[in-house]
């Protein structure tokens, strides 16, 4: 699952077409476009809008899967040529000076750059960095919902000292993103793959829910049960999460004790067994 936050309709259009995001919803002033494994929201310009859109998208994601996040858009840069793509390795909010550092785990051809989020279109390009208007709103919010390795920011240079931001048109925006779709897609695939792995590591035992329904577990007991189910999944993955004696157990505490005793009686192993757990 990947959530994409984009400021402008012109930036969004090529992505919507490329990924065939056919399911369109409007919530307030935000437009969302979806398919099963991807959601895209058009936030409008500015970091406050980006933050709000990110939070809204997170709230709409009811899946238990870990989602990756990607902000895509145009940016100014002091010296990079227009059309150059960049991944942000540092995002700084110009107003507060606060910075974030998206970990860079992928071996992708996209160059990384520092990115400063400003409140108005940049014209002076004082530093040798990229300038945008959304990242410092998007990134800290998205980081609350996913591990930061899965939260990235991809920009395409639209203006620099030679070409003013005043000359940017919707069509120009659209073309800049369109030209980088292959690169964007490589990043999307890498993020989605990593998010899927992350989700699979942490997937609970398939039989946990059924067991949870059969007896009344307190919150503390639910944690204990989840931990026992985790051990069960590792040690005896091909056995259902069940013991014949559980039928006779009157309460959750007795169930937990039985499961614990069974697991503790098993010989330890350092070798991962095939995961063919049945419910």
């Amino acid at each position: 699952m990947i959530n994409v936050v984009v400021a402008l309709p012109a930036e969004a259009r090529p992505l919507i077409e490329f990924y065939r995001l056919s399911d369109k919803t409007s919530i307030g002033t935000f437009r969302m476009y979806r398919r099963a494994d991807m959601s895209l929201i058009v936030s409008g310009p500015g970091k406050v809008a980006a933050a709000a859109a990110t939070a809204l998208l997170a709230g709409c994601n009811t899946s238990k899967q870990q989602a990756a996040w990607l902000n895509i858009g145009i940016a100014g840069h002091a010296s990079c040529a227009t059309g150059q793509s960049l991944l942000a390795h540092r995002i700084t909010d110009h107003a507060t000076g606060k910075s974030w550092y998206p970990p860079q785990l992928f071996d992708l051809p996209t160059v990384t750059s520092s990115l400063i989020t400003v409140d108005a279109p940049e014209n002076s390009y004082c530093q040798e960095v990229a300038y945008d208007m959304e990242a410092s709103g998007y990134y800290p919010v998205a980081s609350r919902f996913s591990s930061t390795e899965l939260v990235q920011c991809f920009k395409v240079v639209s203006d620099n000292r030679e070409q003013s931001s005043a000359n940017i048109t919707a069509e120009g925006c659209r073309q800049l993103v369109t030209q980088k779709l292959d690169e964007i897609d490589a990043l999307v695939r890498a993020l989605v793959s990593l998010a899927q792995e992350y989700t699979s590591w942490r997937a609970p035992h398939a039989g946990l829910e059924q067991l949870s329904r059969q007896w009344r577990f307190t919150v503390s007991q639910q944690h204990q049960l989840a931990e026992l189910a985790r051990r069960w999944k590792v040690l005896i993955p091909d056995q259902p999460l069940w013991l014949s004696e559980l039928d006779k157990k009157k309460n959750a505490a007795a169930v937990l004790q039985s499961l614990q005793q069974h697991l503790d009686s098993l010989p330890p192993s350092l070798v991962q067994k095939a995961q063919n757990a049945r419910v």
Partner: protein
Amino acid sequence: MPVFSIIYIEKQVANHPRTQDICARFPDAARVVCDRYGEVFNPNSQDFRLQKRKPALILAHKHKGRVLETPDGYGLGGHRNWYFSHMLNCLYDCRYCFLQGMYRSAHYVLYVNYEDFGTDIDTILAAADSEPCWFFSGYDCDSLAMEPVSAFVQHFLPFFARRPLAHIELRTKSTQIRSLLKMAPVANAVIAFSFTPEEVYQALEHRVPAIERRLQAMLQLQQAGWQIGLRFDPLIYQEDYQLQYRGLFQQLFSQLNGAQLHSVSLGTFRLPRSYFKNMVQLYPDEPLFAGSFSDTRGMISYPESLEQEMTDFCTRELLQHVPESLLFPCTLNG
């Protein structure tokens, strides 16, 4: 040796000679300046397991707490025991290692102000009133594995050579011994190699050089006149652990002369509960973490009877190869 695509640099050390040397080794790496390394290393919502795929390097200044007293029960017979960490996080990825439970980030932090560490060590020595002191490196990292980047040995071994009352242990699983072989052996330095049996090594010690390669590195150092030690810590339980450890000891001592070692220490697997909890969250699928452990006074360990059994067995086996005076069971009580 990793090739870094990103090096984070604390503003304070941007012009430090060591920073510049290291950056010159990685000319293609993006250099990202930060105010304090904690901005990169400390934030929540990082995943150690994900970052371990491609850790970045962070160059920083260590301001305080550079040299600390070891916990009670940790030592090699000396009364004054200290440890210091020039680096956080390790090149290797041993699944039992507490670092993955302690730190949120897997990035390597290298404190480039080695001279300040030296000043603190000298302050401790001055206060010790001519009594020998032990300094243990290799707590938050492997002492040798990143030597081509850190030049830790190049700096600190000559430093200790000039201070005969200060003993240093370098604890390692690395075979990066070139720097050591290039210099005259330092009489008050011990190069201590950690081992687990082959089965445990294969299952848990990712990226670590093979047992035989580490053994050959030990032999080379010993032949060159260095004091070497063996470290069996943590001892990892399996049903046939006795067979496994006996086999390991036989392999090592078929080539090492036990009487010529400096020391042998051992200790069972144990770590703070909070670290263990983090490690389980990172690796819920790890068989080691699915075992049955004791949770006592905030520490996760094998049940006490099993700890004693393992320690007793390994001690008896080791005493067939080394004199008792060289054997130091670790007696940390958490």
